[in-house]
């Protein structure tokens, strides 16, 4: 906890540029990287200690999403008279993994500040580490799930190796979008304790507004574009198209729907939009979080 003169400077009122504050946030986080790691480790340990499922947790939620997806898709297939193929299932699985990271990380992150009030009101550390540590712990879970998924893909001979190169970019985008929401909402939950309930409701119904169980092409040309406005949609669709379909995400992709309509299912700008929105959102919520940080102890 070394506070040299410069680090203590914010105690002097006013005169701080936004850029300077980002520097401050980054420096504080770097200084407390050990805490970030220890808190993430704590969350991982607790999840696997005295738990029925153990590492099963990592695949439980994505598996449920896949099963739900199978049901939905089977119903659709029945209505439209087509068969449910392996590629569709694989797409469901990989999107289910991404979606459960988002749901899990956000669900726990929202309560990360209000659940650690004794720390927040008594000990100084950059409060950003609390939601971020939760996200790291969730990322660990998702990584375990990803390993399981990779094994399954290889076993069934699905997927494209070249598409795997896109996974880090997409995962990072997903992390940034989630972090933007997590910082904003965890901070909001400290001031209004019902934020966590609102978030739970939104996460429950969010799956209908995100192309997890369905594919945008099923919505038609206009519907597909609208569905891609959800910043998570390009990430999840990108994962499916690159890993399962082997599509190069730098190229637009037009597919013909069952009604003979040409639908733009992918454009590189989709991903740029998602990443851009995520970065701007993260910057804004980090700034808000940082400025409110000093008010936390007064409002809890």
């Amino acid at each position, binding site marked *: 906890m070394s506070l*040299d003169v410069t680090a203590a400077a914010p105690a002097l009122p006013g005169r701080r540029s936004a850029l300077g504050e980002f520097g401050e946030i980054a420096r504080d986080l770097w200084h407390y990287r050990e805490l970030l790691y220890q808190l993430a480790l704590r969350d991982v340990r607790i999840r696997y200690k005295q738990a029925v499922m153990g590492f099963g947790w990592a695949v439980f939620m994505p598996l449920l999403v896949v099963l739900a997806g199978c049901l939905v898709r089977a119903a659709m297939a029945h209505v439209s008279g087509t068969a449910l193929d392996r590629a569709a299932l694989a797409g469901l699985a990989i999107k289910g993994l991404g979606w459960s990271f988002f749901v899990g990380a956000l669900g726990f992150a929202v309560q990360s500040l209000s659940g650690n009030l004794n720390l927040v009101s*008594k000990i100084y550390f950059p409060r950003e580490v609390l939601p971020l540590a939760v996200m790291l712990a969730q990322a660990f879970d998702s990584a375990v799930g990803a390993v399981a998924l990779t094994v399954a893909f290889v076993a069934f001979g699905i997927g494209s190796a070249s598409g795997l190169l896109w996974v880090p970019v997409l995962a990072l985008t997903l992390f940034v979008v989630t972090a933007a929401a997590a910082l904003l909402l965890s901070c909001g939950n400290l001031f209004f304790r019902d934020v966590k309930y609102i978030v739970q409701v939104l996460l429950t119904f969010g799956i209908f507004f995100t192309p997890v169980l369905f594919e945008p092409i099923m919505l038609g040309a206009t519907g597909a574009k609208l569905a891609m406005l959800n910043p998570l949609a390009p990430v999840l669709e990108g994962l499916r198209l690159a890993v399962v379909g082997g599509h190069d995400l730098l190229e637009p992709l037009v597919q013909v729907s069952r009604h003979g309509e040409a639908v733009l299912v992918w454009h590189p700008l989709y991903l740029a939009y998602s990443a851009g929105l995520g970065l701007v959102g993260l910057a804004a919520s980090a700034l808000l979080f940082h400025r409110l940080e*000093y008010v936390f102890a007064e409002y809890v």
Partner: protein
Amino acid sequence: MAEPRVDFCDVSKKFRRGELHDSLRDLIPDLARRVFRPGGTGAELGRREFWALRHVSFEVKPGQALGIIGPNGAGKSTILKLLTRILRPTSGWCRVQGRVGALIEIAAGFHPDLTGRENIYLQGAIMGMRAAEINRRFDEIVEFSGIAEFIDTPVKRYSNGMNARLGFSIAAHLDPEVLIIDEVLAVGDFSFQAQAFERIREMVQRAIPVVVVAHQLDRIAQLCTEVILLDRGEVVRRGSAAECISAYVLKPVSEVRADSTEGPFQFRRLTLDSPGPVRSGERLAFTVAGQIAPGGLPREIEGIVITVRSAQTGQAVFTTSNARLGVPLPEEGPFELQVELQCNLAPGIYAIETRLWNRARGAPAQQGPSAYVQVQPGKDFTGLVQMNPTMSVARRATRSALTGS
């Protein structure tokens, strides 16, 4: 003289009373103001606002130990939170240079499901230690805490005392350049308190600047080179420990409640019959109230030990007990023990402490409430102790009278 390590310059801090916000209509503009005009200097008080601190200044240099005393709500904890960057001042500024060791909520980061070993790394990281540092001092931490055999047991199975021991032990191995202490001197059992206090005293002797908040005035008196007395956010007095403690105790705390509520014996309270200073040589009367659970006290409990301790020097000047005086406690139920002492003491501040004594262990079994009295110079004598002087004068026949007869 060295540069001050802790600088607290004309700091004021404003808080709100009662519910913080009735509605979004209040909160949103307020938050917006804080976000867009951080550290606004607002010298005026808004509706329902009050000053938790008002124009407080001090500095602490290496080798100095500053004690902060005052009644509850005086602003002591606010000062500590400003020093540890949890709060920001409304106006003025504060600065701490060097690595801060904050002995505040030393076990706050513990997670009940993790083992002692895992919690050492977690709590260490919360306090700002690196894994390499913790690795290096791990054995020392465990040894100091005295709970080596339980280090791989989940902390939820620890007693409160073990928790506190482990927490203090981690904090004590931080190697801070500035030490900030809040009431942690009251954790753990008697011997651990002594051990912890010794550790802190050692740091002061190594010229580490210390800021300490405590209600145990005798500890403050033993530790601090300088004391400030706060009341309602303002510095009422600053000076030597004895001076400030006297000023504080002149408005005596006549009734102090004990906090232990378990076990076969409970201390209720210690009440001075007449609050206010006592003169040297006069009698001091007080009542210790307690309760004995049905079934009575264990055999090894001797009874209530009363100690009078000088707040300035920390030395126990007098100790007695109901057993030594042959006054038995009742078998069970609530009781009041009336005590009268002859205050044959030098003027100063004295703490009256109560303990439950364990005869078998030859150590206190439980701490009871304490009170402070000020002894003023008396009519009969000056000095350290009353030596019960007797004097008489006999008339003697003079030589001249003899010879002159």
